[in-house]
């Protein structure tokens, strides 16, 4: 009886050590796990579907500052920038970028750590003329801004 208990305890301790060691060795990888990938939203093939999969229908808000070109000569490389007026939209934890006319509208989701400025610059592909959406999560609520970008050369056919 005694032996069994001893055996169990030491095995548990061993497991704990192994877990702690594993966590230490994969520190950057572990930090990645803060927000899991929203697979359903990425798989969505329509804008409404993708927005729904992100949680709720976002409210339009002037605090979301979304910069895109009015006209993109090359739809394969469309520079975008998302900023937030933090005096009206505090505690932003997430920024998502959607392209209405793409086969899969959700392009990217950014998890923002506290202390990180809400400022994201990247480039996305835009299949054809349509709206681009920036959705931010502030205090658990979703807010958005949209911009129309005209595309003279499509982005997905290459």
């Amino acid at each position, binding site marked *: 009886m005694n032996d069994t208990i001893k055996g169990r305890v030491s095995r548990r301790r061993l497991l704990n050590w192994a877990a702690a060691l594993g966590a230490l060795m994969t520190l*950057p990888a572990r930090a990645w796990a803060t927000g899991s990938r*929203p697979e359903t939203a990425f798989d969505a093939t329509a804008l409404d579907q993708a927005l729904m999969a992100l949680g709720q229908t976002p409210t339009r808000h002037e605090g979301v500052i979304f910069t895109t070109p009015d006209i993109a000569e090359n739809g394969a490389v469309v520079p975008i920038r998302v900023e937030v007026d933090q005096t009206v939209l505090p505690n932003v934890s997430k920024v998502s970028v959607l392209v209405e006319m793409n*086969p*899969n509208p959700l392009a*990217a989701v950014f*998890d923002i*750590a506290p202390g*990180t400025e809400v400022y*994201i610059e990247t*480039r996305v592909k835009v299949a054809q003329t349509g709206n681009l959406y920036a959705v931010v999560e502030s205090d658990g609520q979703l807010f958005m801004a949209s911009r129309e970008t005209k595309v003279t050369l499509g982005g997905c056919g290459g």
Partner: protein
Amino acid sequence: MAGRIKIRAQKKGELTEVKALMRHPMETGMRKDQAGESIPAHFITEVAVLHGDQTVMQAHWGAAVSANPFLGVRFQGGQSGDAVRVVWTDNQGGTGEGETTIR
């Protein structure tokens, strides 16, 4: 395939501005080659920006991010000389990493 990342981190007042350029084809899986065979999807799915051992931003990407992706972020609390790292993984198990120090 381990891709290198061109990365720059510059202090601008309170903020540190990070700019990273990754080499990656970002194939959507919807294109066909000249022989009409479809080109398999190959794109970066996860990206993280680290300041020391702190993750300042973590991104999930779809294939709609442009080829050779550019990423710009800003965070607070960086000091000149601090290490800033950008790491990515793609849907085929590839990884990339770039490191610099804040100027």
